[in-house]
């Protein structure tokens, strides 16, 4: 049925028809027609954030937790530029986010109008695709395509910039199907045959899987390295089947955490800069690494020249540009993690890796005591696990606490760990957790931050209160920008330049927002406080006062090899 609608109404209708039920945004001049139309679409819930950056992170959190597109909305100029960090975060971590921004009227574009900015130009390198809609007749098609582009293949953010007069323009509107499929079909037109393959990409999927299975059968020290692609591609069962059929131990990258059950006898842990010694040593001794849905980024590999020197690498990724980008591969398979892993699991011969597992056990070292006082991260996270009974989603920020949580919290449920990995965006946890809650309203969500990252977006407590989002917040407060301070201690002769950071009284802050707040200084108080916060019906805040100069161990120095972990603090000058 065809109707005549304004561009603003079309935005609302196309989103609703695509199944979008919540959007995160902040109104302003150039997006006002959209907000006017929103009043007629009660099924499209709007979450009013306190800063547009939070809208983008919340949409990202929603997308990661639900597997569906997260949508954020902002006005032109500063509204749009405030989204940039959130979009870059989503781009680095392959999260399907669609941003809709208002733009000044078409006649004003390029004239430095009030609140005009070239947001399409600004976001070119951090979006999968972006659009400046010049004609309302194109708008519905653009929104449908944007939603499809964000989700299909390797997910990522898409931005739609809609001038104010286009939002007000009217056109005939017919509900239509979602785009999709058609975009890939466009790739068929070739300059010549055969189409390009990447360096190391095995031409056919069957050959790649057969060769990978052959390498697995021949390997004495194989490892499975599992990344975010396994979570995005919902390939948990297949990865577990592959691991259990072959007995190959499993490593999960930071974004791959919770893709394989912690506590499984084949689970080793996280590799890389703050990976456990045994995990990194396993990589350095491995003769085969099967990487599924990961980028082999520098925080995982350290210096690539010294990475896994004995190993041949099988790399399975949906994005062919990732194959061979950072590490040379023996077999590169371009495909969906679930599909390829299922084929590989079917092809491999059953085997075990007992001798190799014994060898890895020898690599285990007792964790050095790194904390003074009894409020150690181990204690905190064990207590949190007890309070939540492991049934919650944990969203972390960036820094020391992020590494402690990644290493010490035993994740059991798939996709129950959400963090900003690639971009490393401080301030991510609190707003992203709001989006996670809306994606999983029946679950408890904990946002864990340091005192630095928390202060970046703590204004969002107001959003939680106004929009009734019962996010639980925990702050690891050490009075420092801890990870930077740790680097200063190790690599900048302990000159703590600009890293001591003052915090407000968080309990009073909670009180000011009308939510319960606790300060914990002793381990004895933990269980009771965490249980109370966890069981509270609304948002709640817990400040954890931890040792000021605690460090994350082990640590591979930046640019160093995985074989050279730092496990103790350098001796102070004059010692």
């Amino acid at each position: 049925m065809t109707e005549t609608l304004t561009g603003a109404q079309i935005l609302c209708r196309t989103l609703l028809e695509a199944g979008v039920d919540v959007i995160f945004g902040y109104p302003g001049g150039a997006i006002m027609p959209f907000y006017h139309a929103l009043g007629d679409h009660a099924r499209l819930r709007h979450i009013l954030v306190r800063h547009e950056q939070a809208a983008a992170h919340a949409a990202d959190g929603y997308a990661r937790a639900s597997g569906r597109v997260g949508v954020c909305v902002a006005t032109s100029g500063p509204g749009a530029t405030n989204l940039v960090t959130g979009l870059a975060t989503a781009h680095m971590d392959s999260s399907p986010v669609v941003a809709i921004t208002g733009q000044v009227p078409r006649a004003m574009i390029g004239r430095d109008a009030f609140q005009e900015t070239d947001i399409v130009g600004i976001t070119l390198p951090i979006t999968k695709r972006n659009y400046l809609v010049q004609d309302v007749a194109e708008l519905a098609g653009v929104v449908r395509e944007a939603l499809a582009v964000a989700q299909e293949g390797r997910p990522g953010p898409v931005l739609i910039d809609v001038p104010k007069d286009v939002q007000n323009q009217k056109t005939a509107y017919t509900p239509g199907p979602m785009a999709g499929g058609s975009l890939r079909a466009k790739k068929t037109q070739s300059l010549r045959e055969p189409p390009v393959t990447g360096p190391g990409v095995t031409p056919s999927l069957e050959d790649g899987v057969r060769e990978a299975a052959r390498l697995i059968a021949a390997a004495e020290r194989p490892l499975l390295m599992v990344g975010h692609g396994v979570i995005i591609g919902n390939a948990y069962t297949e990865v577990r089947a592959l691991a259990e059929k072959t007995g190959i131990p499993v490593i999960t990258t930071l974004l791959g955490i919770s893709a394989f059950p912690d506590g499984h006898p084949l689970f080793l842990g996280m590799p890389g800069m703050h990976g456990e010694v045994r995990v990194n040593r396993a990589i350095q001794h491995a003769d085969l690494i099967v990487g599924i849905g990961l980028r082999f980024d520098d925080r995982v590999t350290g210096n690539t020249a010294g990475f896994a020197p004995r190993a041949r690498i099988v790399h399975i990724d949906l994005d062919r540009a990732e194959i061979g980008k950072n590490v040379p591969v023996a077999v590169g398979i371009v495909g969906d993690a679930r599909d390829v892993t299922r084929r590989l699991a079917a092809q491999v011969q059953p085997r075990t890796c007992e001798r190799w597992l014994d060898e890895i056990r020898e690599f285990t070292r007792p964790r050095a005591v790194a904390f003074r006082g009894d409020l150690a991260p181990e204690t905190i996270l064990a207590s949190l696990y007890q309070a939540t009974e492991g049934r919650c989603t944990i969203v972390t920020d960036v820094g020391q606490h992020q590494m402690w949580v990644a290493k010490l919290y035993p994740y059991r449920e798939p996709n129950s760990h959400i963090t900003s990995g690639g971009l490393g965006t401080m301030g991510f946890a609190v707003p992203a957790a709001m989006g996670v809650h809306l994606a999983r309203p029946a679950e408890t969500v904990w946002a864990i931050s340091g005192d630095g990252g928390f202060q970046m977006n703590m204004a969002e407590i107001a959003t939680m209160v106004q929009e009734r989002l019962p996010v639980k917040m925990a702050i690891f407060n050490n009075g420092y920008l801890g990870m930077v301070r740790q680097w200063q201690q190790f690599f900048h002769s302990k000159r703590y330049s600009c890293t001591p950071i003052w915090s407000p009284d968080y309990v009073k802050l909670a009180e000011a927002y009308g939510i319960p707040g606790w300060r914990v200084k002793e381990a004895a108080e933990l269980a009771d406080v965490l249980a109370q916060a966890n069981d509270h019906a609304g948002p709640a805040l817990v400040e954890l006062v931890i040792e000021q100069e605690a460090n994350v161990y082990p640590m591979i120095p930046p640019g160093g090899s995985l074989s050279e972990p730092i496990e103790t603090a350098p001796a102070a000058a004059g010692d």
Partner: protein
Amino acid sequence: MPASHTVAVLLDDALLTLNRAVGVLRRRNVPIECLALKPSGTAGVSELTFVLKADAATAGRVVQQIHKIIGVRDVVLVATEDSTTEVQP
């Protein structure tokens, strides 16, 4: 060893797509010796050809990064150096 690589790209006739393709070179600071855009012969599709100076691995990565741009229909490393022989993919 840096060599001259000729890359041909078929892409949608849209400034944003062209901008994204060139952005791949800009971001990686790949030296460009020449660059040309012309109609491909198919309506709505342009052909972008450029010669970049880089080692083979960098040239390969550029091709892969451009290939994944939505609106890019195909990318081919047409030739290396002044060779008239096509590089086999």
